[in-house]
């Protein structure tokens, strides 16, 4: 686990991140958490099976755990809407985070989505508003927030549950503003340029650590890149360490650091034109 594989190309990582045998949120919850109670619905419109969450015990500590959920067979994939949440999914996630805040419990989120669902009904119910509202409101939460990108980090649909104090990322996960296919179609006007787009977008864990977006990379086995049995231990080790370090800070300290963390992201020039 110590020697991370930097030989894999970005487009290969995209393939690994999307692989149907990768650990999904409910697999991780089953392996890392106890007493999980899945809670449902946004109290506004519906329950969204593409985004799951609930209460659980983590190393003896009560927490709220939330994540995107994909399906493995045809029926489950359709049921989970390929892991693409609608506004009700994001509103449910925020509701659960606010409950965590009320009881002063940490929140752990797992990201694995191609993106927020692009559909007429999602637009009608305010997909953009649901994401934006989460970005603002989650940043106000006092409880510790940990996010782990485990598969596909698909743009705003990923970020909407990804405001955090510490961002972890699996070695073979990706996190991007747009899919390589979408980027190739727009900028190169050619779907055959996806591999090039994937490399230019700097969407791997290593790239994003360099850009200051990712705090910790969770190494994966180089033999079995898809469903490595040690992967759960590796996630557990890093999430737990992050949680302990965040619990060592006061609510006020964490909030200051969280705002500073977001405020400094990005690179710009101060020189004018």
């Amino acid at each position, binding site marked *: 686990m110590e020697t991370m594989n930097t030989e894999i190309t970005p487009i290969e990582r995209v393939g690994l991140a999307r692989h149907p045998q990768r650990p999904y949120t409910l697999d991780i919850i089953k392996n890392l958490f106890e007493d999980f109670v899945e809670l449902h619905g946004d109290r506004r419109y519906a329950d969204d099976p593409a985004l799951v969450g609930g209460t659980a015990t983590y190393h003896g500590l009560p927490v709220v755990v939330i994540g995107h959920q994909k399906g493995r067979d045809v029926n489950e994939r359709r049921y989970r809407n390929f892991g693409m949440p609608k506004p009700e999914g994001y509103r449910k996630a925020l509701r659960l985070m606010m409950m965590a805040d009320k009881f002063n419990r940490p929140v752990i989120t797992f990201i694995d989505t191609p993106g*927020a*669902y*692009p*559909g*007429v009904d*999602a*637009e*009608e*119910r*305010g*997909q*953009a*508003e649901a*994401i*934006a*509202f989460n*970005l*603002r*409101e989650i*940043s*106000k939460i006092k409880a510790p927030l940990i996010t782990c990108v485990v598969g596909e*980090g698909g*743009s*705003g649909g990923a*970020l*909407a549950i*990804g*405001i955090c104090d510490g961002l972890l990322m699996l070695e073979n996960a990706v*996190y*991007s*503003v*747009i899919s390589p296919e*979408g*980027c190739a179609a*727009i*900028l*190169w006007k050619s779907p055959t340029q996806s591999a090039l*787009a994937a490399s*230019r*977008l*700097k*969407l791997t864990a290593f790239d*994003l650590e360099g*850009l200051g*977006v990712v705090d910790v990379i969770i190494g994966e086995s180089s033999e079995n890149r898809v469903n490595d049995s040690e992967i759960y231990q590796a996630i557990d080790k890093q999430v737990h360490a992050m949680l302990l370090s965040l619990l060592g800070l006061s609510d006020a300290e964490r909030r200051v650091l*969280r*705002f500073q963390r*977001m*405020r400094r*992201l*990005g*690179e*710009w*020039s*101060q*020189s*004018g*034109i």
Partner: protein
Amino acid sequence: MSLFSRKKKNLEAVPAAERRVTTEGIFVKCPKCSTALFKRELEENFQVCHSCAHHFRLDARSRLAMLYDEGEYEELDAEVISCDPLGFVDTKPYPERLEQARRVSGLPEAIINGRGQVGGHLVFAGAMDFSFMGGSMGSAVGEKIARIIDRAIEYRGAVITFAASGGARMQEGTLSLMQMAKVCAGLAQLDEAKLPFISVLTDPTTGGVTASFASIGDVIIAEPKALIGFAGPRVIEQTIREKLPEDFQTSEFLMAHGMVDLVIDRRELRAMIINLLNFMMPSENILRLLDEDKEALPDTQ
């Protein structure tokens, strides 16, 4: 060097898309109703067709001039511009695209920040410009929005944004995405400072800009018939494989679905904003009236 550079009223500029037409001759043809419009009259009419009320796209500086009292404002943060954090090259290197955008738009970045008075209230405004790389939000745009929010908190002013954007700037990858978090975190602090944020949505506002600051104003105002949405219409059509409703993702569609407070003609926009700021901004006048009322109350002890 002064901190702020002074900008005078500037109603001359028009978006690049229409520039070629408008600078040739004295007439502009309305793309909606084909009426020939006097260029001068169109400018005096806030770039709105007097025949069919079609709203022409506006450049960022004209937008700010229309907002502020006497059209006067100080431009802020002009020195904050995009760099190339990823070394991004598609069919052209990103720095070349930036150069081209600066040339075409005549602007340093896809948003222009201003500071001035609106109805006598201190307002920090950011106006996006679609002619600068589709008004896309990269690190510099995010930083500029974060700075007007910071200043509004420091000087107890209001924030007003005019969105005009195709979304996040792909050439800055995940750093663009993170600007959504950055500006929304700033707005969380503005909330806690009890200061106003009015978001004006103009044609077009989509993607990562819609899914961040633009959709969470205390009050959200849309210009008539603007394209506003999260996912692009083509992406949705490909996903659902059917034709989209006629007025889908227009201002009026959002209004019907409860996503905006008001759809307002540009010619009435400033008056409406002043009306709202009178409600939102801390006012000595209101405090005095409350004191007078308190004195007028009968003693209930």
